[in-house]
């Protein structure tokens, strides 16, 4: 498998160095592998929003660091959670006396490492809260699984809670808002093919020319089941159906049609059109939308749909100014 890399073991550090070169408004610690706003002193007294996770989901998370969204993001190895030391360093670099909110995607590794980081931070006398993101309806949520995965709702929580933090809200309020966005959001993903990690050099699973995986996560793992390939209208309907069977979305929503990394925007807009129709037929309207590659799985072809029930105050926070490498409006 051909990749635009120098060496598999250097890919994360090289990409962080590239991010630093491209975005002087960010401060990138390539050695300790975290990214934060360069002009951080200006935000004294603000709750620090820190997220992070395995690399391979770009622009998540480092692409969402900046005014109106995250204060810092930690980059792990590809598809591997960062370590507590990174999270601690990121929190120490950005906390401004109002505490730290960790936004954690619900994967065992991320949960355990952020938990350890929170304990280390407590030893330093810095207050923190953690909010788990678990929006993926493809996973049966029960005591007998690791619970639902965190996927597209992570972006929604980072944007909306980030806007609230920017207004000077306190830690409990910002944490409650992130938890609320998560509770109002659901996602479902479909892969047309596998992805290939730089270290492995070969695809994580094999899929026939006419097969797709339904209910995939964002780590190249197989989904819940295989099905025959179908027109975009049917795939969009399958995703919307799974999401709406889990939560009543009647009313206004924020909708994201997210590319998994290797599906062209041309196709994502075809899917968005079908999602729009599938939602309208259910009495659901899209108040705001995103179409593009936001929470990816390396070079996987496919898409995910994320919906968030959004009333007036969520929409107002969504519309608030944001300036990050991958999301910017209003400033």
């Amino acid at each position, binding site marked *: 498998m051909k990749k635009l890399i120098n060496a598999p073991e250097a890919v994360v550090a090289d990409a962080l160095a590239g991010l630093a070169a491209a975005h002087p408004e960010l401060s990138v610690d390539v050695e300790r592998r975290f990214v934060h706003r360069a002009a951080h002193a200006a935000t004294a007294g603000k709750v620090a929003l820190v997220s992070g996770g*395995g690399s391979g989901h770009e622009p998540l998370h480092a692409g969402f660091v900046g005014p109106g969204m995250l204060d810092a993001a930690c980059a*792990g*190895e*590809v*598809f*591997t*959670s*960062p*370590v*507590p*030391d990174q999270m601690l360093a990121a929190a120490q670099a950005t906390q401004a006396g109002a505490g730290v909110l960790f936004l954690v995607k619900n*994967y*065992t*590794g991320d949960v*355990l*490492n952020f*938990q*350890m980081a929170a304990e280390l931070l407590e030893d330093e006398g810095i207050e923190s809260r953690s909010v788990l993101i678990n929006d993926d309806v*493809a*996973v*049966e949520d029960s005591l*007998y*699984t*690791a619970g639902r*995965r965190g996927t597209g709702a992570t972006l929604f929580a980072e944007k909306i809670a980030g806007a609230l933090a920017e207004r000077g809200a306190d830690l409990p309020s910002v944490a409650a808002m992130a938890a609320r966005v998560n509770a109002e959001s659901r996602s479902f993903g479909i892969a047309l093919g596998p992805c290939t*990690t730089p*270290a*492995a050099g070969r695809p*994580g*699973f094999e899929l026939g020319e006419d097969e797709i995986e339904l209910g995939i*996560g964002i*780590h*190249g*793992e*197989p989904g*819940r089941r295989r099905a025959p390939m179908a027109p975009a209208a049917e795939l969009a309907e399958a995703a919307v159906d799974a999401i709406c069977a889990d939560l009543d979305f009647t009313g206004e929503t924020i909708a994201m049609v997210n590319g998994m990394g290797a599906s062209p925007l041309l196709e994502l807009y075809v899917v968005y059109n079908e999602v729009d129709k599938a939602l309208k037929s259910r009495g659901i309207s899209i108040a705001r939308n995103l179409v593009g590659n936001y929470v990816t799985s390396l070079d996987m072809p496919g898409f995910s749909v994320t919906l968030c029930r959004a009333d007036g105050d969520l929409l107002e926070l969504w519309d608030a100014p944001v300036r990050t490498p991958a999301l910017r409006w209003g400033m």
Partner: protein
Amino acid sequence: MNAEHAGDEAGFDVGVLLAWIDRVAVAVERDKDRLTDLDAAIGDGDHGTNLNRGFTTVRAALEAKPPQYPGAVLVQVGSTLISSVGGASGPLYGTLFRRMGKALGEAEKVGPQDLAAAFAAGLEGLRKLGGASVGDKTMVDVLTPAITALDEALADGASAARAFELAADAAEAAALATIPLRARKGRASYLGERSEGHEDPGGASCALLWRALADTLAGGGAGTGAGAGAEAEATDR
């Protein structure tokens, strides 16, 4: 030759523990592709790579700052794994080793019963952190029967070398016994019934720990880092 000495009252010193960890590092490096392939089937295909990165860092850390007693070896191993591995296996293996090290305390020498008690403390820490029970298709499925086999062999009066050999046999059998299970913890649980029919990668790496320990106490040379092994034999006498 140290088989006879292994269970004697003198116990194991810091050199034996270092030799064990060295053997684990060698075994993880040797088996990293197998562990990664197991993980690719039901996880995300990086278990061997991540663990190998961790134990490579562990070797360097132990060399840079040599611990002075057995418990300190394992605490340092655990802390280094937490700081270098990431994912779920970093905190889980890190906690296992740290708890074991703390259970051994600051004793200059530790006996087989002390190691058995340390494994039990490590398992308790692991279960508390990860929340897994026997049958969830995790490391717990391998640690639990290995500790039981060790306790039973020691109670029956087996030599330390024999007891840890029986424990390693139990660990390897338990790793294979995870194949038919449906995962209920970790990333493999997302697959539901599709996780059945595959060996748990964490269970497989856990069995390597036990075999490495049995080989260390038997004084065998196969596939080991010769330097640390020889040093361990020297200090064990």
